[in-house]
Each structure stands twice: as structure tokens, then as C-alpha cells.
């Protein structure tokens, strides 16, 4: 019986429901959503791939082209890669990643920079561990 005032108040007030998807709330400023890579600026150093806790990023290079692959189904959105990116080409949108009906990976190709940046030097200990 103690709940009576609360439920009656609920009946006569506006429901708390946000009518998503007809009404979408503005996302919070710092929300960590979809991970995107401005591939033009990427130097394919591989720092993100090494630091990623879920190992969902891979960076491979051939002679002229760098390939940045994101297995986005395994991405946990922690933002570690964004933090370690030396050229700030990685960023996170404030909106969540849309749902998908099939498994996929995101593969971005870009031109390699003229000279590898200094931070690209792999850490020997971590390398052997993987």
C-alpha cells in the first residue's frame, strides 16, 4: 500500500519514456561511440593495434599502401587507441555504432607517409608476446 502515492503520481504525470526512435536525445558531449579513422592522416604506425586491449585492430603495410582494419564487432570502445594515436587521426563519434545484419570488418586503405614516424618503432617485448 505504501507505493500508492507514487503510482498515482505516475498516472497523472508525463511518462518518463523517451519515444526513441521517433525522438532521439542529443548525445552527451564526451560519449564514446563509433571509432573512426581519418585515414588520410593515418601514418600506419600500429600503436593503436598494439595497445588495443581486445586486439581488434590490425595495421599492415606493403610497399606503398597501409591497411588499417577494425574488427568492429570486437571493439569495446575503451578509447585507448584514441589516446595513444600519435597523429590524432583516430576519434570516437558521440553516437553509437549502427547495428548490422552481417558480420563485417572495416578495412581502410591509405597511402603510407614518406617516412615512418618515430613512434612506429615496435616494442620488442610486446611483439614477442603476441
Amino acid at each position, binding site marked *: *500500500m*505504501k*507505493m*500508492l502515492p507514487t503510482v498515482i503520481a*505516475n*498516472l497523472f*504525470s508525463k*511518462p518518463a*519514456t523517451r519515444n526513441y526512435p521517433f525522438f532521439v536525445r542529443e548525445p552527451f558531449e564526451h560519449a564514446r561511440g563509433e571509432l573512426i579513422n581519418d585515414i588520410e592522416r593515418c601514418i600506419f604506425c600500429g600503436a593503436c593495434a598494439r595497445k588495443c586491449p581486445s586486439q581488434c585492430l590490425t595495421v599492415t603495410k606493403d610497399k606503398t599502401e597501409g591497411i588499417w582494419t577494425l574488427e568492429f564487432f570486437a571493439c569495446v570502445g575503451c578509447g585507448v587507441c584514441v589516446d595513444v594515436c600519435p597523429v590524432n587521426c583516430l576519434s570516437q563519434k558521440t553516437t553509437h555504432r549502427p547495428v548490422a545484419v552481417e558480420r563485417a570488418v572495416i578495412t581502410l586503405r591509405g597511402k603510407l607517409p614518406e617516412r615512418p614516424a618515430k613512434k612506429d618503432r615496435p616494442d620488442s617485448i610486446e611483439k614477442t608476446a603476441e
Partner: protein
Amino acid sequence: MNLNTFSLALAGLVLAPLLGGVVAGVDRVVTARLQSRLGPPLLQPFYDVGKLWSKVIAPASHWQGLFVRWALAASLASDVLLAAGGDVLMCFFVQAASASFVALGAFCGSSPYSKLGAQRELFQLLAYEPVFMVAILCLAKAAGGFDALSIMAAQGPLLFKLPLLVPGLVFVVLVKLRKSPFDIAASHHMHQEVVRGVYTDYAGRDFALLEIAHWADVTVVLWICSFLWATGPVQMLVTGLVFLFAAVVIDNISARLTWRTMLGRVAPITLILATANLVWLYLE
């Protein structure tokens, strides 16, 4: 049996379950609003039944299809009886038969939860049946006849003669609507410790038919409750809705009790109140 009675009976057969469906829809919308939610569309129960109807699933028992249809037949028969102005006590017995078939079907199932639900359904039956039966005896005594027509023809609202019936009838409505605190055999929101209780093993089209039977039951119960103020169709409708609203509110302000509490406390108390009212009617 004249043509008039026949058409009334037919109307009961068709309209009563539909009315029950609308009641279920109203219930869900009001429940949602009490919980500060927007809630489903009013016709959601009909979509649910339509969906269940088109599902394909292997039965849990060879017997369940049979019992579901018997339960539906009994529920509809009780509607027909009431609509045609028949004997309310008989209508009540017919409805109890429907509940028995539901429990029997659940016994035939293979999941332990289904059988536990069946046991609890029976305990529930044991708790509300006497109260409901005494309530009907009271109504009949106060109105001077057992048939629905003479009860509806009673002079003035019966509520003033039968105030002690109200807790009992609310109890019956709560049990029948499968609402807290008495949703012991199966809860109206889709889960509790016995999963879906007596409904656990019913699925697909059988479950859809059972839902329709449940609507028919709810109509009968609310209809009988509305006899407390049967001075006209509108008044009856309002009385029925008041009972429905009371049940929905109580559902939202109470926890589920156990069958031990229901059988040991609530049922005796409501029964004693109803009996006191009946004795009072006789002493008058």
C-alpha cells in the same frame, strides 16, 4: 428458448472474448502509465494472439490441444450462459471447469514448471472458488433469484446490501487477472519463479486459444462483479471498470504473496467477510 435469448447468447459468444481482449489492452496501458511508461497500443493483446496463432511449434504433450479447446469451450459457454441471462451459479461452475482443463493440460506437459504451475493453479482455484461462490449466493439472495436477468432487474444498487463482498470480489478479480499479490500460478507479466507456471508448456496456437479463453473468463468475472451496481448498462460498465482499475492499482502496489499466505490468510478472511454478509442478508 426464444429468439431474443438466442441472439443474446450469440452476442455473448462473440463479443465477450473481444471485450476481454480490450480489457487486457486497457490493463496493459494503465499498468504502463502507473509505472511511468508509455505502454503498448490498446490493441496489443490482439496482435499477441494473432502472432501466437501463426507460430509453428511442436506440442509439449499430445493432450494439451484437446484440453485447450475444452477450456475455451467452457469459458465461452459461461459467457453464453451469462449473456443469455442464465443461472449465475451454473455459469460459475462452467468457468471452474475451464480452469480445471487448463490445469489438467498443464499436468500433461513435460516441464516440471508446468506441473508446479498446475498444482498452484489448483490451490488458487481452492482459494477463490468458495469466495466467489458465496458472493454469487449473496447476489442471488439480495436480488431474489439465481439467474442473471433477475439479478440485473434488482431494484437499486446491490452494493449497499453487499458491502462486505467487495474485498472478496477484488480478490477473485486479482486472481483471475493473474495479478500481484495473487499471481501465484502464472504471472500476467511474463515471468516468476515458476517461469510461466501453468502456461509454461502451452505454446503457439494452443496458447492463443488459451488467451482467448482467458479473455472470456475475465469478462465473466468482471460482469459478475458489475452486478453490484446493475442499475443500467452504463453503470455496469463503470462498475466493471472500477474493479479492473482497483485490480491494476493493487497489482502495482504490492509484492507477490505465496500460496501458503493466500490459502491460510487471505482466502479465509475474504470468505468470512462474504459469509458474514450472507448471514446478514438472511437475518434481515
